[in-house]
């Protein structure tokens, strides 16, 4: 069964395109990544699922039910963590969480306690006194406290330190093991790779590719920048190298394949510097379109 089904979902703000003809499914039990640069239409798509905005045309089903027509019913099963977290400032954390819990039929107090212990969240502080990272933790607990069947996470990791980020990922993985479906939006490829089974790539409001993460890892490009002397001799023109730019003192290229091949070539050279890095998302996109 599909947890989410987008049917030609389109949203225009007047003449400005938010997203267009979004048309894919997320299976139940999947962790599905949704990646694209800022402004590509990720949030627009997600906000439509929650009826925060209404589509121009098309629809979205959540667990088989029209999420726009029957929004309040669909949202019972959804836990949502927005990208920017703002809450009623003057409230204490615990009061906000209890208010949040009051919208659901079952008692969530045990889960609130459990989650805030995992996230090391002080329940008795006022929200206005919290740091950005701590507010984010409130958001995480708030999104998970009713044990939703579908988790929608919109750029959830910004503002979390690496340790907390790991705890958060573990939490998500655990929820997933218990059966929750996860839609995870991000512009950071590495975190999507770490967690997700499949990803959809969105650009300028359109889905350009849906990939298995395993396949994407297979496509694992590395970006090489090499400095030295007498480098423009064409030694890097081998299988798996693309975007090769050679100068006498500097060479840059992308490489996909067995890195030992490159290391062997480099070993014979006199270098002043070498940088091996993950390509940025924009650079990945370039590959998808060339």
């Amino acid at each position, binding site marked *: 069964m599909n947890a989410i089904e987008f049917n030609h979902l389109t949203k225009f703000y007047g003449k400005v395109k938010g997203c267009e003809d979004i048309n894919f499914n997320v299976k139940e039990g999947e962790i599905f990544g949704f990646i694209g640069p800022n402004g590509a239409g990720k*949030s627009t798509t997600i906000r439509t699922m929650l009826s925060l905005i*209404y589509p121009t045309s098309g629809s979205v089903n959540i667990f088989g039910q029209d999420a726009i027509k029957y929004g309040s019913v669909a949202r019972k099963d959804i836990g949502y963590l*927005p990208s920017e977290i703002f809450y009623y400032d003057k409230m204490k954390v615990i009061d906000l969480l209890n208010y949040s819990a009051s919208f659901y039929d079952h008692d969530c107090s045990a889960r609130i306690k459990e989650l805030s212990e995992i996230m090391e969240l002080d329940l008795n502080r006022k929200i206005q006194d919290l740091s950005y990272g701590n507010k984010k933790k409130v958001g995480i607990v708030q999104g998970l406290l009713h044990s939703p069947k579908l988790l929608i996470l919109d750029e959830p990791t910004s503002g979390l330190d690496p340790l907390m980020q790991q705890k958060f990922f573990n939490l998500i993985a655990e929820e997933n093991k218990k059966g929750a479906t996860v839609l995870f939006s991000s512009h950071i490829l590495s975190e999507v790779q770490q967690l997700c089974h499949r990803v959809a790539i969105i650009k300028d409001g359109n889905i350009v590719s849906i990939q298995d993460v395993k396949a994407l890892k297979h496509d694992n490009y590395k970006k090489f920048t090499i400095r030295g002397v007498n480098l423009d001799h064409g030694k890097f023109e081998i299988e798996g190298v693309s975007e090769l730019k050679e100068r006498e003192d500097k060479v840059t290229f992308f490489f996909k394949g067995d890195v030992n091949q490159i290391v062997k070539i480099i070993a014979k050279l006199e270098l002043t510097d070498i940088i091996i890095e993950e390509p940025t998302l924009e650079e990945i996109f370039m590959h998808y379109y060339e």
Partner: protein
Amino acid sequence: MMNIYLFELGMLKRSILIWSLAVSLSLFLYMAFFPAMSANAGAMDALLANYPEEFLAFLGMRPDLPMSSLLGYFALTFGMMQIPLAIQAANYGFHMLSVEEREMTADFLLSKPISRKKIIISKFLASLTSLTIVNAATWIASIVALLMFKGDSVIEFGNVILVLSTIVLFQLFFVSVGMLISVSIRKIASVISFSMVMGFGLYIVYGFKSLFSNKILAYFTPYAYFEPAEILITGKLDLVFTLLAVIIIIGSLSFSYLLYNKRNIHSL
């Protein structure tokens, strides 16, 4: 649904306390000056007689209900109290449906399993409860003050009750029109400036209506629909104006409801 109502009412706690005290105490204080003023009634009436009638009308005074009479003085005081009542109601109107977007809590509230319909109703009822408490405080302050400071005057309470009973429509007018404006525009940056402009602005329109005895201007301001002096003299409400108020209230509420249900809540 009850949870939103109680939450919203909790958020209004301070506001209810402040407005109830402010309106009832200032009404009471104004009325407390009546005995001193009525002692010099002759001098006062003589002084006011020097001013042109239009000017006195601008200040809300009528020759057939002089300021030196208890009800004339009450009409003036009540007319003045209509301004804070209007500002409070407008404040709630502009605030209730726009606060979530202004303070970015919309993503929290609207992603909960509750329909916007229920959100509007809960919020409206919470505001209405608050306004009703302030309304009740105004009733009590008015009746107590009239009884305490009446001196030798005899009061016909029937007309006073009629004046007080217009408060609810007056409040509903401002709260519903405020709501409609708040959902018709993209964003309300400062609620208090909107409500001040609406509360005072329509009062100034009312002033000009009186100054120029302009019948058309009267249709544009609820202060003219429910003039305390007029009600105290005639002993009845103006049917056309009352009906107009009811139509505007129902229309504004319905359109607010429709527009809010269709509204796109944007992220930052």
